[in-house]
């Protein structure tokens, strides 16, 4: 008990042990060993691909021979500003903005209720109940909506039995919103987008409200604010980072989607479907590459805006 055990000299022992000691003494070596595989994968495959794509945006596409030649040109990027292409960009952008706003409005009460009025088991229940639809298959959710909105489908049954048909016809008659039926209208497409991206909005708002110290609300009440005033002047401003964080997802995901516009809503390209058509049916990879730059630039601009709102701290 009173003797001091002599520690093993670090140099001795198995090769593995010596290797561990080497790594312990050379933390930079250890770090680079850990980092090399993921960096190789992401650097070579992912970033390399993005640069390849960008580079091909400068290639020339010959309309007559349908061939791509590596002659560098800016024609593809200037073509983005042609009225027909610019329309596609505007249509997609406005949908992304409207979907983000609507998602925030629908998500807020759910997030607020989750954060302030649930605890323990109920909170866990809400959390799972939001996470499950979020992870549930994207394509199946889109498919479910084609079933819901189809002629003679669920939505129509409810509209009929609630006697809301005149209202529906009225809404579908509004230009820019409606269409001939629910499943071929802008409204239908908008509803599908809001549905699919809603959980991405709920969770960041809930997290930001969760961090709100109850003492702030008590202080507000003590100082004589009515619940409404507390909500408008304390709770809502402090939840802006969460809303901004959620809107990054709703905005970016709507901007790049090409499956939902294909399944629901009126004809007319979205950025995503244009990219898909350009590279697939038309074989114009340079134009497709130029088009993918649009969501990248729009998202970069959007990120710089929401960064000021504190979105990155709420992610």
């Amino acid at each position, binding site marked *: 008990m009173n003797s001091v055990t002599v520690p093993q000299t670090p140099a001795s022992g198995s090769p*593995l042990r010596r290797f561990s000691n080497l790594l312990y003494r050379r933390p930079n070596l250890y770090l680079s060993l850990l980092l090399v595989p*993921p960096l190789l994968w*992401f650097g070579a495959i992912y970033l390399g691909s993005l640069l390849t794509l960008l580079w091909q945006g400068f290639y020339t596409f010959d309309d007559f021979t349908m061939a791509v030649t590596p002659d560098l040109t800016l024609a593809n990027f200037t073509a983005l500003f042609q009225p027909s292409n610019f329309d596609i960009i505007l249509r997609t952008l406005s949908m992304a903005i409207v979907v983000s706003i609507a998602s925030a409005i629908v998500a807020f009460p759910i997030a607020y209720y989750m954060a302030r009025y649930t605890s323990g088991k109920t909170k866990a229940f809400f959390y799972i109940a939001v*996470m499950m639809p979020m992870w549930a298959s994207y394509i199946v959710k889109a*498919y*479910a909506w084609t*079933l819901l909105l189809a002629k003679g489908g669920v939505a129509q049954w409810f509209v009929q039995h609630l006697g809301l048909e005149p209202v529906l016809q009225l809404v579908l008659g509004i230009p820019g919103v409606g269409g001939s039926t629910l499943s071929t209208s802008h409204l239908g497409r908008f509803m599908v987008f809001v549905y699919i991206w809603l959980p991405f909005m709920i969770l960041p708002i809930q997290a930001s409200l969760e961090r709100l110290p109850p003492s702030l609300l008590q202080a507000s009440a003590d100082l004589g604010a009515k619940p409404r005033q507390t909500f408008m002047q304390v709770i809502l401003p402090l939840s802006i980072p969460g809303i901004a964080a959620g809107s990054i997802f709703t905005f*970016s*995901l709507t901007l790049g989607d090409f499956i939902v516009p294909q399944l629901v809503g009126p004809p007319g390209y979205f950025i995503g479907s244009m990219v898909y058509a350009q590279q697939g049916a038309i074989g114009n990879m340079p134009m497709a590459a130029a088009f993918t730059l649009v969501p990248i630039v729009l998202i970069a601009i959007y990120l710089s805006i929401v960064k000021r709102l504190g979105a990155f701290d709420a992610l």
Partner: protein
Amino acid sequence: MRSDASSQDRASLGLRIAAWGGLMFLHFPILIIFLYAFNTEDAAFSFPPKGFTLKWIGVAFSRPDVLEAIKLSLQIAAIATLIAMVLGTLASAALYRRDFFGKQGISLMLILPIALPGIITGIALLATFKTLGIEPGMFTIIVGHATFCVVIVYNNVIARLRRTSYSLIEASMDLGADGWQTFRYIVLPNLGSALLAGGMLAFALSFDEIIVTTFTAGHERTLPLWLLNQLSRPRDVPVTNVVAMLVMMVTMLPILGAYYLTRGGESVAGSGGK
């Protein structure tokens, strides 16, 4: 920790309706999928369903194209998940403790494949494969899936590592264990459930992915691609409904598993009850 004062006041009726109504809105279309999978009708989506049958499940599972798509999707998801688990764990082990130049850049790069719309990843990979002369197929699908699955594993594992005290590892090494033994007996058991949770989510994400896959699949047809292709074939509706239900379950159940594996435990393991 919520004070009693704020949990005593009840939510207003309007708020409760909006919150529970919102939850119903989130789940209603999913219920519809489950309902229609057992519908007796064979061509229409009329509501309410005419009757209940299990017939279509048998029909769906005797279709060779369905079985092939399921097999392909399972293989791809398994391999992509495995790659993502290795790369994600390595990245999180590298990034969780030390600060070094470029650390922010690396974590941003890991997130990019799911932060940017999938169409960008998809077409970028396609452009590269074409340039390199690689024929799109199962291999290219796996490469794409692994790329965006890494961040899922990374997030789960790094969260667990941050909750694990580093002194556990130092103690193990001080007691004479080598790096492998420490990893095998100390780090891995501690990471286990987080790694499993991340793997399950990555599997679900890969199993369901369609946008990147559209560009990298070539002539291969994963289950989501089969489903999308199916939507333009009205006479196959019952089989489509059954497959839709199956895909829904494969993607939803992992979230339950991941939740139970990673819940609780705000305390740091091995920090002496701090």
